[in-house]
């Protein structure tokens, strides 16, 4: 379980998270929606220990993330896969090397690494791209390789940072299907950051809206779709005013 309790975070004078509290239950996919620049990605980075809160608690499986030392963080990160907004693939490595990098850190035998790389690439429908470099891939393919890199680790949690942003509707739907498939195949708990409402309704068990540094509303897809909160309603309907 992932818990964020009364988390505060500012960058310079600008507060981004301002008393943010949220619980992600085991086995669910929780979608975090909100306007651009409101701290959705910042929230994900707190969960994996890339950012430290100014105040508040971030707890993953009972471990207080801000208090972990380097070894503790490495142990935590072995349980978490992270899919970056622009994939963050290593340019100098092939697709297979990118997917294998996290596995090599776990000192697995080479034949098991090769097997898990193929398995992960198959799951994202990228079999046969092993020797290609990130520069040779389309945006959608890069995102799928990023997903494969996370899946290959067989983590307990996967954090998705805007997995469908910048993709055409069909490719976005493919990514959504992969997110659902990943949960079904691996039973992972997921946190998906997005402002693509179609994607949120497709992949989410619950949806939380981040607004002015706090959770404005959290509920099932149906509860969010039927919300009476004017701020949430404006956002999900995409109305300018």
């Amino acid at each position, binding site marked *: 379980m992932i818990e964020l309790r009364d988390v505060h975070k500012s960058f310079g004078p600008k507060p981004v998270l301002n008393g943010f509290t949220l619980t992600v239950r085991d086995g669910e996919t929780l979608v975090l929606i909100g306007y651009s620049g409101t701290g959705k990605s910042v929230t994900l*980075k707190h969960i*994996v*220990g*890339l950012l430290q809160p100014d105040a508040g608690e971030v707890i993953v499986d009972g471990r207080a993330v801000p208090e972990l030392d*380097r070894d503790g*963080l*490495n142990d935590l*990160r*072995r349980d*978490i*896969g*992270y899919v*970056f*907004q*622009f994939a*963050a*693939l*290593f*340019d100098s490595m092939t697709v297979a090397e990118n997917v294998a*990098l*996290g596995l090599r*850190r776990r000192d697995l035998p080479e034949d098991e690494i090769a097997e898990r790389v193929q398995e992960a690439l198959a799951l994202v429908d990228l079999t046969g791209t092993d020797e290609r470099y990130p520069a040779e891939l389309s945006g959608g393919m890069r995102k799928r390789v990023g997903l494969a*890199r996370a899946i290959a*680790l067989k983590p307990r949690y996967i954090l998705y940072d805007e997995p469908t942003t910048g993709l055409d509707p069909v490719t976005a739907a493919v990514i959504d299907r992969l997110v659902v498939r990943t949960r079904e195949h691996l039973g992972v708990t997921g946190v998906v950051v997005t402002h693509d409402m179609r994607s949120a309704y497709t992949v989410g068990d619950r949806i939380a809206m981040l607004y002015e540094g706090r959770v404005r509303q959290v509920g099932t897809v149906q509860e969010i779709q039927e919300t009476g909160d004017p701020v949430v309603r404006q956002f999900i309907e995409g109305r300018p005013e």
Partner: protein
Amino acid sequence: MDMVRALSDIGVWARLTVVQMRRVGVDSLPVALFIAAFTGVVLALQASYTFTGAVPLYFVGTLVGKTMMLELGPVLAGLALAGRVGASMAAELGTMKVTEQVDALETLAYDPQSYLVIPRVLAGTLMFPVIVAFAVATGIITGWLTSLVLLDLSTQDFIKGLKLFYVFKDVWFGLLKSASFGFTITFVGCVVGLSTRGGAEGVGRSTTRAVVYSAILILVLDAFWAVVLL
């Protein structure tokens, strides 16, 4: 401190250091040799121009050897490689930083210090003396060829001058200086690269900063070693 702690992660940095040593060494050698070759020619001609009539011409060998070993070999190679190696490392790591590749490394349980910084800094510290040794040899050879062809100085006289006042300290002093330059250039390149913010513009700024800081530190270190060891 982070870098010292990351030294214990030898399984990660040892293999990558070999890769970086090959990269730093092979990539830098042509630039260093090119500069040294022409410096050797100029040194021989300027020495002969200065010595005319007053000092025996075989002192050309002394001046070329001493100057290449003690000063121009390490410093010119260092300044050139601050542009070549330091800029390239700052740009590479800066790009990795702004495209979240450094964050990705961390989420895969790698420490960027042991994966990115230690291999580069070690490679620079170990390979720069090797590069400078080749550069010094090249400068002396071109100085000798210039003396032979343009100054009518015999090989015997050039070598006589080269041996005059030679002490082993000339060699180790130059190589020690080179190692300190190698450390400085790569360390500055990595630190500046990893502190990059703000996209392509930030990468450009970091690259320039790395070259300027390295060049200044090389000159300061050069004076420091002269004061401490000569």
